[in-house]
């Protein structure tokens, strides 16, 4: 196939092949966690919210990771918890990243009043101390998955918006945009062929970092008791475990506290690895190409 006919799949493979070892490990880790979330019903023998054994059973043949205070299987909680954590993380990241990105592109492309409005809002949001406000607002709005997502989105769209805007501005100043316009290009064409392809990779990196931020923030909120009690995210598991009186004086923490903690740490590490590698692979390509 001639080299000018590269498609998206090829480009993806090309990008991945430039990843470092950690990056590849990260990808595998994420893939495992996603499988865990998707195939949770197959991987675990019991539903997560059902009492299927004695209280605080240590890991054994029936319950691979033992049970919690109420006799619910920890392993199934971990599997289903992956769903929750990933869902919240990705939902927040996608809404904030893409929505914020779209606002930023619009502001950058249109300029003028639209730009002013968006950028002032972004400035205000960036200046606010996010976590304390997060705590206050979620306490005020009451715990539900929807609210958690909403609040996290509110506090994370500013960065992508800002970056997308500055990218759009710098692209817009290129002569090739003038040239394309002179050839009769519509704004839609410019967006599709010139702006999105440049901004999307950067947004993608941001989306990954927002995912980790959202997962962490959700854990934090849950940890403080501000999570949705009906959702069994890993954060909520930690919350319940740490709220068990004097858990550290008992052996229970070994199978109740450690698994969600390890799962969280692995997920965040994987995301961090991928994020770092993506940044390196996508960014220097542009930098190096510019020097040509």
């Amino acid at each position, binding site marked *: 196939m*001639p*080299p*000018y*006919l*590269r498609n998206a799949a090829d480009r993806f493979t090309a990008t991945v092949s430039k990843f470092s070892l950690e990056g590849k490990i990260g990808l595998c880790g994420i893939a495992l966690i996603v499988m865990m979330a998707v195939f949770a019903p197959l991987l675990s023998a019991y539903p997560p919210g059902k009492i299927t054994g004695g209280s605080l059973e240590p890991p054994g043949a029936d319950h691979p990771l033992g049970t919690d205070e109420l006799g619910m299987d920890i392993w199934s909680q971990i599997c289903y918890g992956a769903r929750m954590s990933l869902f919240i993380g990705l939902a927040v990241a996608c809404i904030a990243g893409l929505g914020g990105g779209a606002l930023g592109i619009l502001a950058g492309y249109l300029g003028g009043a639209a730009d002013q409005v968006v950028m002032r809002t972004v400035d205000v949001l960036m200046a606010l101390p996010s976590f304390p406000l997060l705590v206050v607002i979620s306490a005020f709005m009451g715990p539900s998955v929807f609210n958690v997502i909403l609040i996290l989105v509110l506090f994370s769209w500013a960065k992508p918006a800002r970056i997308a805007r500055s990218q759009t501005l710098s692209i817009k100043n*290129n*002569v*090739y945009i*003038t*040239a*394309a*316009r*002179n*050839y*009769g*290009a519509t704004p839609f*064409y410019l967006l599709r*062929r*010139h702006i999105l*392809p*440049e901004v999307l990779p950067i947004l993608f990196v941001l989306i990954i970092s927002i995912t980790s931020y959202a997962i962490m923030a959700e854990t934090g909120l849950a940890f403080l008791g501000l999570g949705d009690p009906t959702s069994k995210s890993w954060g909520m598991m930690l919350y319940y475990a740490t709220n068990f009186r004097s858990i550290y004086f008992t052996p229970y923490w070994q199978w109740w506290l450690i698994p969600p903690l390890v799962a969280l740490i692995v997920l965040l590490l994987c995301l961090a690895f991928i994020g770092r590698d993506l940044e390196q692979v996508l960014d220097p390509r*542009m930098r*190096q*190409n*510019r020097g*040509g």
Partner: protein
Amino acid sequence: MADLEVKDLKCHYNTDTSVVPAVDGISLSLEAGEIVGVIGESGSGKTTLGLSIMRLLDGLASVSGTIVYKGTDITHLPEPEIDRIRWKDIAIVFQNNLDILNPVMTVGKQVVEPLLKHEEIPVREAQARCADLFRTVGLDPVWMDAYPHQLSGGMRQRVLLAMALSCDPKLLILDEVTSALDAFTRKEIRDLLIDLQKKNGYSMILISHDLSFVSSLASRMIVLYAGRVVESGPTVDIINAPRHPYTRGLVHSTPDIFVYKDLWGIPGESASEDGHAGCPFSRRCTQPIEICRTSPPRLQSCGDGREVACHRGGIATLLRADAVHFRYPLPGRKTLHAVNGVDMDVCEGEVLAIVGQTASGKSTLAHILAGILRPESGEVRFMDGAVHSGNNGHRFGGIQIVFQDPFSSTSNRFTVLDAVREPFDINRIGTAAERLDMTREALKLVRLPPTDEFLGKYCGALSGGQRQRVALARAMIMKPRLLIADEITSALDVSTAANVLRLLKGLQNRRGFAMIYISHDLSLTLKIADRIAVMDAGRIIEIGNAHEVMLHPRDDRTKRLIGTRVGHCCHDHKPVGMAGRLQTRVSDCGDE
């Protein structure tokens, strides 16, 4: 009353297979003592014209039309009478070919022969006359006993001249008398002709392809193309402001007139053979219209004693700017008058250079002319429509612009293919396969490899020169009628710049589009420009033929601009990569 009147002269050579109309309806008149130049390239029928006036073509070609010499129609005079007029009244000096002179006869004998025949004088007297003639044409009479092959080209030419002068004619027809001679001898012959003309008051018809030679002698010129007159008029006017595209091509490819410019011939082959019905020049013309292919244009007067044969009345105006103003807002309610009342026009097929210092408003003007910026007031018209935002960029035959910065004129992320075919993608022209083909064509045009590998390269991985060529290919793919090149070489190193520039000029020459070349570099500009406009602080302070502006700048600021050039660059120096050319100035016709 005119000495010689030629009316609607036609000479057709009948070959076995076809009829060659070597001369196709030429009229000309010659006053006593006047020198008329007949200019045209090889095969345009110049020699045939000379021969037929001498009635030397009888039997070889079918000749029609009338030739009136001093009131006598010599077209149908019987052979003995025409023989009397030949040599005694009208004499022809042939081109210096070896076969014109008889190789086994001394040159003296050959000059004496017509004397004996026509004047019926004794041999001794004839020989004395011959010696005189030799002295007149600057030859030592001792050479009378030499054989032709013992003489140099210049000397043989002098012998031929002596032969023509032998019977003291009134009218001389000189056919390519200098074309085979070196520059120095050419100048001697020219001076000799001037002397003779002053002393004896000959009328002359100077037939030559050498424009500088003819223009230094003739007061009027006739330009032939494929057996027809395409333009005629006073020499100075024709040289300074040619009206016919062909004449312009001739003038622009004459080194002695455009002293600084590189040589570029008129593209295409002379079209005398292909018998189509339209304007014979249409194949090579930069501005043909529909009618040019179907009917030949007639010679028409266009004022000031000039005539031109062109359906469009000569070189047409392509773009005209009228009182264009543009101001940039500056902080603090101030404005910068970047373009301040510019009037200019660009003709079809010409290269107009706009030079000026940085910040003189050149680029802004370029952007306005291309329709990228909207002028505050004033109007730009291209062909017959007004130029406004990009209405000429998206179609074939419109205006294209190539920008200064090669690194931002194409996207890093685009492959060469994507970048070049972008205009097609935007305007949905052609199928994918057609776009690919056209892209390859365009790349070939700008001398980039049209290979799959190159097409798949990212623009970001190319060098500045390559990227500028990719941008050029993108402009060429739309087949522009006017190309605006905005400082396209300023970001490149000298050698790459020279290559890109030569490429650009070559393209312009072959494709015949008009070009506005914007630059601050006068030396480079002079290599390619036909006309130069000098810009300073938003105004065009001087505009004119490149050599005029260069040799006789009128404005002080132009002088300064030229001064800076000479200051750091000796006048014969050429950038690396530009083919150096030895310039020998034969005559001083440029000073006329």
